[in-house]
């Protein structure tokens, strides 16, 4: 599902060259659940951004869901992203729309037939245990509920790969545990998961394969 081969990323700002990732190589099989750990600034977010083509790698090969990401033309990036579900630390819900409308928005944007939108959106909300809050606005949700809604939005289009960038970063331990359980549940249904977190204890609790990044270098691949 994911294959990185000697990937480097250097940010350039005028004469300054800031290496963010150096010689990263690993692969993730279909249906696998992998945790990406490392301190803040280790390069986790940059690595995920390379995977969904928000940044271009400076060197190396990247293959995601059958797409050669480095060779991908800008116009083909949407095709890659349709096979991905992405969640962030910030839920990024649209404030003027209800939870249901936030989920349905994704389906409408992707041209899902109208009759399929409501059942699919409610199915996703049910999967994250948020059916009863469908008509609530983001401002009326707790942080845990907002993150559940973000998860529902990520899985509503049945992605092959879920990329989660610090999804529990803003949550207390109990809420974080609930969100991780949901992500594990999504993984157990066949979706490949790459979860980035700086919370070492949380990562250890998951008992899954763990990739550890430090200063842009892959330090460990274990489990």
């Amino acid at each position: 599902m994911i294959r990185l081969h000697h990937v480097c990323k250097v940010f350039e700002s005028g004469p300054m060259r800031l290496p963010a990732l150096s010689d990263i190589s690993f692969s993730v099989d279909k249906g696998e659940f992998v945790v990406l750990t490392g301190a803040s600034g280790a390069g986790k977010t940059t690595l995920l951004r390379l995977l969904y083509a928000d940044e271009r790698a400076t060197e190396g090969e990247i293959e995601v869901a059958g797409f050669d990401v480095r060779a991908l033309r800008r116009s083909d990036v949407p095709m890659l992203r349709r096979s991905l579900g992405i969640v962030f630390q910030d839920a990024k819900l649209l404030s003027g729309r209800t939870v249901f409308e936030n989920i349905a928005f994704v389906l409408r944007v992707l041209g899902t037939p109208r009759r399929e939108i409501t059942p699919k959106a409610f199915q996703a909300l049910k999967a994250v245990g948020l059916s009863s809050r469908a008509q609530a606005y983001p401002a009326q949700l707790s942080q845990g509920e907002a993150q559940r809604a973000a998860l529902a939005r990520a899985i509503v289009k049945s992605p092959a790969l879920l990329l989660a960038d610090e999804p529990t970063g803003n949550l207390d331990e109990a809420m974080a545990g609930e969100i991780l359980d949901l992500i594990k549940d999504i993984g157990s249904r066949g979706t490949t998961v790459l979860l980035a977190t700086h919370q070492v204890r949380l990562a250890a609790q998951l008992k899954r394969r763990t990739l550890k990044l430090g200063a842009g270098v892959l330090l460990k691949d274990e489990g």
Partner: protein
Amino acid sequence: MLSFIVSEAFVDLRRAGRVGVSAILLITLSLTALGGFWLLSLNLGRAVSQWRDRVRVVVFLREEPTGSALGDLIRRVEGLPGVQRVRYVSKSQALQSLRQSLGAQAGVLEQLPRNPLPASVEVTPDEDATTPEATRELTARLSALPEVEDVQGGAEWVEGLARWQRLFEIMGLGVGAVLALAAILTVTTATTLVLHVRRAETEIMRLVGASEAVIRFPQLLQGMVQGLLGAVVALALLEIAYAIGAPRLEPLLNLTLGLARAVFLSLPQILLLIAGGAGLGALGGLLARGRATA
């Protein structure tokens, strides 16, 4: 997908608020100015074409020719380049015509000791010879004939009218262009504001894999809808102005330009104006996209 694009465009239009309304008003002003000058030019154009058909050169003769001299003169005039038709008007025919023109006052003519009117030849230039230069050349050739006392008529004043028509066209285009530029900038501003308001939506759309067309079309459509609304209001204003003004102006137009009635824009011209409005709006939407991307 189409329903999504259309509904997002209308949501954006509502979000544009007062700036969106200003954009519509500027498009209305621009197209009203353009359409107003177009109407003036259109009607002047009709008058010009009508008067071009009526251009005549009148050749006054020193003496009334008789018999073969008349036939010889007519043949020589007909042989000149640029002459389409020739009609001889004798002294008595000229007097008869004057009598008819004077109507009730025709009695004054009875006081004259003799017919003072000269015989003349009325020359109709052919279509290519109705320009001022061509009629000037024709007048010079006719003046050179030994039987000719004076030559009158020509296309100068018709050309004056044509110059006014061109002036109205240029003024319409100039004023319309300035207002159109302002309208495009206002649509651009309205759309840019909306793009800032909806940047969260755009980010989500990109993340979930929406195509660029789906992201861009609502802005394009928003601009087009503003343009269409502006064009429809402009046409309504022009139609109202025409309905009120035309019946009042027609007697004056008839007297001065010989136009029996003022016409409104034809269906293709109306459609062109509407398409122009939609085009202005769409251009504003596209420029906003570029500005926001930059």
